């Protein structure tokens, strides 16, 4: 009897130790804040809950960086981290916040659109918790999150997600996916409140352009592209042709399907004034047939299995030994974003948006992402926002 009790005690202690060993890093990841430096162009920092009060005090709330121009003009919204396992979106947005100066018009930037997802992990998928980007002054650390919000913040899931307002049936997991919950509801589940907040921002501030920055697998047909509905397709095509001619990289245009609901490129235009664009840069890390899911693969995008599949013509993007590194992905996103601004400004001169200080594709490929990231430690007090 005594021996039995002793064995049970030892097993219970081992179990607690095991849970602490594995659980504490997950706890720390959830509470790890990422500093974002308010760059020279930032004129205000707001919260999404100002547009969707139901978000106040919840993990769904997030920061909006406002870069108001010297001259009036059009308005644009830039969103990163809609899917927090596609970090090229967040990094593109951070580079704009930390470097951009708006000459004309106003820019609203949300670097961590799905804050809950960025503090979540993806059980079963073996992701790293963080990744470090080498900069001119050292390493800068970022959280690596999940495609969906954390069940700790929005739970339970229904057995099937019924999209508002179209009633299309979607996978139950998509109720926590902020690229399926557009246009959202003020009193819906947390992630619908997030997308509702962004819709309200666009409606109240009269946003002209909304750009949602993502990454997509190399085996996914909708990758390396700009997804646009009918209303934005002309500007998207001009931007695509211009970056190919002037900067030498491909980013083709994909039409937003009318029958697939809940996505930003479909619902933003159908429910608000803005012209939506969704940018996809190829991210090999997310492909299924890859080697170990390491931060190295996340950063350099080099994988021998994908290389072999590329030779068998099973990928939807060109792929060679150089992989698809982070600087290329972020560079593409930034160049396409700037080109969309330029093309829109040409069409609507009274609503022009002019931004300076943001690097383009060639700058990123030459100098790396880290070169354009500020050092939070050397920023004066009040110049850093913890996200």
């Amino acid at each position: 009897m005594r021996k039995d009790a002793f064995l049970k005690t030892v097993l219970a202690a081992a179990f607690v130790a095991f849970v602490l060993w594995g659980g504490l890093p997950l706890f720390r990841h959830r509470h790890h804040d990422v500093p974002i430096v308010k760059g020279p162009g930032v004129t205000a920092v707001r919260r999404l809950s100002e547009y969707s009060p139901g978000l106040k005090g919840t993990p769904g709330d997030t920061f909006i960086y406002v870069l108001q121009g010297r001259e009036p003009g059009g308005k644009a919204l830039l969103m990163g981290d809609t899917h927090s396992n596609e970090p090229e979106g967040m990094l593109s947005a951070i580079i704009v916040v930390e470097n951009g100066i708006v000459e004309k018009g106003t820019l609203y930037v949300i670097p961590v659109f799905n804050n809950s997802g960025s503090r979540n992990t993806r059980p079963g998928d073996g992701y790293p918790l963080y990744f470090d980007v080498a900069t001119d002054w050292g390493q800068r650390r970022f959280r690596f999150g999940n495609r969906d919000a954390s069940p700790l913040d929005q739970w339970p899931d229904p057995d099937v997600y019924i999209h508002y307002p179209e009633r299309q049936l979607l996978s139950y997991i998509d109720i926590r996916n902020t690229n399926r919950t557009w246009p959202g509801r003020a009193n819906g589940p947390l992630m619908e409140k997030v997308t509702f907040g962004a819709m309200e921002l666009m409606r109240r501030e009269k946003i002209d352009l909304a750009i949602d920055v993502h990454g997509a697998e190399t085996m996914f047909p909708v990758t390396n592209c700009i997804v646009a509905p009918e209303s934005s397709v002309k500007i998207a095509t001009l931007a695509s042709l211009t970056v190919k001619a002037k900067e030498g990289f491909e980013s083709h245009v994909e039409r937003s399907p009318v029958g697939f609901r809940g996505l930003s490129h479909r619902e933003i235009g159908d429910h608000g004034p803005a012209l939506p664009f969704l940018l996809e840069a190829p991210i090999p890390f997310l492909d299924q047939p890859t080697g170990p899911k390491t931060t190295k693969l996340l950063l350099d995008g080099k994988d021998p299995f994908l290389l072999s599949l590329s030779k068998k013509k099973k990928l939807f993007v060109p792929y060679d030994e150089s992989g698809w590194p982070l600087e290329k992905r972020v560079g593409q996103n930034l160049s396409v974003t700037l080109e969309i601004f330029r093309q829109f400004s040409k069409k609507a001169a009274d609503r022009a948006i002019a931004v300076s200080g943001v690097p383009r594709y060639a700058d990123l490929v030459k100098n790396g992402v880290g070169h354009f990231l500020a050092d939070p430690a050397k920023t004066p007090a009040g110049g850093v926002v913890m996200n």
Partner: protein
Amino acid sequence: MTTQILVILAVMIAAYAAAKAAKLSVELGIFAAAVGGGLAGAFLKTPAIGELGRHLVEGSTTYLDVILVFFTATLFMTIVNESGGVDYVVRATLRAFGKMRLPALLVLMIIVLVPGALTGAGSVSLLVVGAPVALALGRLGVPKKRVAAILFIVAGLSAAAPPVNIWAMILCAGTAIPYVGFEFTLGIPVLFLGTFTILVLGWKKDTGTMSGNADLPLTTPGMTWWRVTIPFAVFFGMVVAYRIWPFSTPIFGLSLEFTVAGAAALLLSPKRIAFLTLARDTAKRLLPLLATMVAVGMLQQIMTATGVRGLLSFAVISTPLVLLFFLLPIIIPFSEGLLTYGGAAIIGIPLIWFLDSIGFHATVVIAGLSLLWPLGDGLPPTALIGRLSTMVSGYEGSYKDFLKATWLPWLAVTAVAMGMIIFSSKLAFLVRWSM
């Protein structure tokens, strides 16, 4: 890199084999494979040793939702059973249909199909209606082995049936294909295969097992129709209410819906039920199954972190098309047996992208594949639906014999599924009918 990953895979297999040799349970075997693979991977820092604990703990939560549903659904049905509701239903069903074999079998098939079709989980079908249907089939003279086989195949089909098919939803979500056009594309093959299964396995009477009404279980005094139906009406009412009024009905989730239905069954029971003892016994009974889910999640996480999962996916995608068609009936069910829904993401998503790009009709291919995946729920190491089928039918013979009993419907499901995949473009009219 391939050699490094193959070594890790070999260590995983060796750890599993060693655990089996030491007569450890399936779930401990899977846990050993996960730890072994993680330690082997740590030599190359994929993952680093300091990260191993985090990966194991994180992986253990992969199927937390499914575990909660299994527990709450089983508890609900155990309460219904304990209150005498199951015996009451079996007696009444046989009284109504006992002498009309064909309608009796078809009604029982539909009863199994409905809960799984509504929730996307064959386990829910088995946990909610599996026991009474098994008893009814027994009374119709179907031996327990064939009862378990019927439940396994039909519960699998219920999970694939529209409107909710989790495999198809995972594939649609991962491939950016709208989850529309599946009603006839899945509904017709599911009804055809369900009818085929119940007739092939249930038509022949085994007079030795068949018993007359005299042998039927006695009903608990005070048990009435409304006492049995209200808890089920509470459950299905909550499921259906969300479908009809999705924007004004609170989201309860299946676990809470089963819990509320269980509370209703407890309150309406004509006899007093010792709830805590019942809950403890249910947890004990389900422990091996739940532990398997925890361990499979850990294994899946380690397989991804070490690259083993990617290598398997790579092997499938690299296979020439004709050979792939021959291998799919094996690969798809085994991926489900090993990774449950993970198989759909790892193999299914790249496969759909590939087949779509060479002219196959993606929606029909997804429907075809989602008929194959449920077969894997009878295969080790997880064998979730297979084990549940034997559990609720009371079959205590060899698991291998139970699987053998499913061979003909298994072949029929495979033939229909492969036909749908290979001739997907010719079957595109099913999608058009559904729109």
